[in-house]
């Protein structure tokens, strides 16, 4: 871990200590947190601390700007969910918001200062076609027209190709499971749908149960390999753990749920890395800290490269190779070898074709 990455972690753990940073250190920290999609979150933390007035002018200006962006994102997510719900409400099926949209709509701590890409939802697999049709009638249209992409999503993946609203430009990812059909981990979507929390003020609109929120976030982070947002996702996990651990009996429920869904491994990673990087007080929260020995040292090194991948300044030598290994790993976990090799070959060829153009 290099000094820049260490400083970024210190900022996330102890925003109140930031008043002592020099201007060049701030200059670097602003860039690093922005690239890690964490500037808005840090801005809210730092603005609440003593000494805010003493920070360099440009730091305060960019943090103010980042706070506006965070507030706008929350307004935008609420509005998009509202419009999506309008389109699907009458179908009488449970619509389950995942990740960011769920945090915002149920006002959970990770929504604080979080930046979003798409809105993710989970619907029963046997109604997927109807959902797609209803959304199309309300202006959401597919962007992946390539026949290969269509087949990739529909036969192997756990979601439809992303659909974008024709006038508002917002993107929905419609899922029918939380991991791909072909993946090595096989939690049953029907199991997830059995423990849902209603979103206040809406009918047929839900989020996953408390434990499942954490398990899903952990599975997404450690198994899907979108590492540029890795640290942001870990910050989500830290906030969820701190929030729910105060509820009696939660910890047993979390471990039991991981057993039922076959997601012990991602949970173990989540506990290990929130504690190691963000000092999540697992013991005080009543969670048994996982033994480091459970994680293969090679995998551990790959994950550390992953968390540092948001900006080149944060990385240590070997990161290109490590990120490539993480990319292969996420695909290896996603599909069996006889599907994986042709798929990667197709992607590599498609990429070189676009590069030529």
């Amino acid at each position: 871990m290099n000094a820049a990455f260490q400083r970024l972690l210190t900022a996330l753990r102890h925003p109140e200590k930031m008043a002592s940073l020099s201007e060049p250190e701030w200059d670097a920290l602003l860039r690093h947190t922005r690239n890690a999609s964490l500037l808005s979150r840090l801005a809210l933390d730092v603005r609440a601390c003593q000494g805010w007035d003493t920070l360099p002018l440009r730091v305060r200006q960019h943090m103010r700007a980042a706070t506006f962006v965070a507030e706008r994102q929350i307004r935008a997510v609420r509005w998009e969910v509202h419009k999506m719900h309008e389109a699907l409400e009458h179908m009488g099926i449970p619509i389950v918001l995942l990740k960011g949209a769920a945090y915002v709509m149920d006002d959970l701590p990770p929504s604080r200062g979080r930046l979003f890409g798409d809105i993710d939802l989970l619907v029963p697999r046997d109604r997927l076609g109807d959902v797609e049709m209803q959304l199309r009638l309300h202006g959401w249209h597919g962007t992946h027209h390539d026949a290969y992409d269509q087949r990739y999503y529909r036969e192997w993946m756990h979601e439809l190709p992303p659909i974008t609203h024709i006038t508002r430009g917002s993107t929905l990812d419609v899922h029918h499971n939380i991991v791909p059909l072909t993946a090595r981990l096989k939690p049953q979507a029907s199991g997830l749908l059995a423990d849902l929390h209603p979103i206040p003020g809406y009918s047929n609109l839900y989020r996953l149960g408390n434990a499942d929120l954490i398990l899903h976030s952990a599975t997404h982070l450690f198994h899907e390999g979108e590492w540029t947002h890795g640290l942001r996702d870990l910050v989500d996990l830290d906030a969820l753990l701190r929030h729910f651990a105060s509820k009696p009996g939660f910890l047993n429920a979390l471990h039991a749920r991981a057993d039922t869904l076959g997601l012990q491994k991602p949970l173990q990673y989540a506990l290990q890395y929130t504690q190691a990087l963000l000092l999540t007080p697992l013991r005080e929260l009543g969670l048994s800290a996982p033994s480091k020995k459970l994680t293969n040292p090679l995998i551990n090194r790959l994950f550390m490269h992953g968390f540092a991948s948001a900006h080149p300044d944060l990385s240590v030598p070997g990161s290109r190779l490590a990120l490539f290994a993480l990319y292969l790993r996420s695909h290896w976990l996603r599909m069996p070898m006889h599907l994986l090799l042709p798929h990667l070959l197709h992607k590599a060829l498609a990429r070189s074709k676009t590069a030529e153009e």
Partner: protein
Amino acid sequence: MMRIRDFSDRELADRLAQGLDLRTGPFIFHIQSRDDPVFSGLRRLYADFPVSEAGVRDFHISVCRPANLRRWYRPQVVFKHDRESPFKPLPANHAFASLEWGMNWCIAGYAHHFLTLHAAVLERNGRAVMLPGEPGAGKSTLTAALSLSGWRLLTDETALVDLDTGVLWPMARPVNLKNHSIDIIQAFSSDAVFGDKAFDTHKGTVSHLKPSLDTVMRMDEPCRIGWVVFPRWQADLPARLTRRPRADTFVYAAENSFNYSVLGETGFRALERLIREAECFDFHYSRLEDALLAFDRLST
């Protein structure tokens, strides 16, 4: 304080290769480039601008050759903001134009500590006139002519409205002129200093007009608004200034803001105060001379 003109060619090139901290009003751009058009554009058009010493910079940008064959074969340049490259690579001789567009892109995308509007702003006798930009309305030509006729240029492209006080902040950057406008302004004033032309850009031929020394020396002097004027060039019409409703001006300005929707209620309040303070007009003209007279009368 060092200004770009204080550096020798060699020093400026070295600084640019490492990264030069250029200050333009409230923003410090850390600019890194080894490309000739960037060097000569800064040398000629930004000569009077201050260079700041290491501190917090607003934007870290670069204009560089991509690391592939296009480095040599029909060379291209790529604009980058930190790790993002928002534009497709452009021909190497568009490097300076690409730097200017990139700077505008950074401000539009990130400077949400201001309300940013797509408009030119100039000042005379302590009051600012804001010219919102309808494409093709002749905003840049008029801005350039006014800036060469006793009006102080604050910005030709992005108005910066202070969220707390409502004043307009200058950037004092060069005016971007296109196609026929370049010839008009060259004919209009022998004082006009232009950068090299970039041909066949997505906006046609593009060149930049150097801001006056007074404009640059006063880049930290904000100004309260006096007027919003919507210029429209129309052949063979006498110059005519007509009142425009404030409500209508507000809606137009909101739609032509880069970040009105980001700022939410704060943006609404800032824009409401700005428009309430201003007298609003539509302005038709065909001859620059008539336009300058009309603006003279407005400001006295």
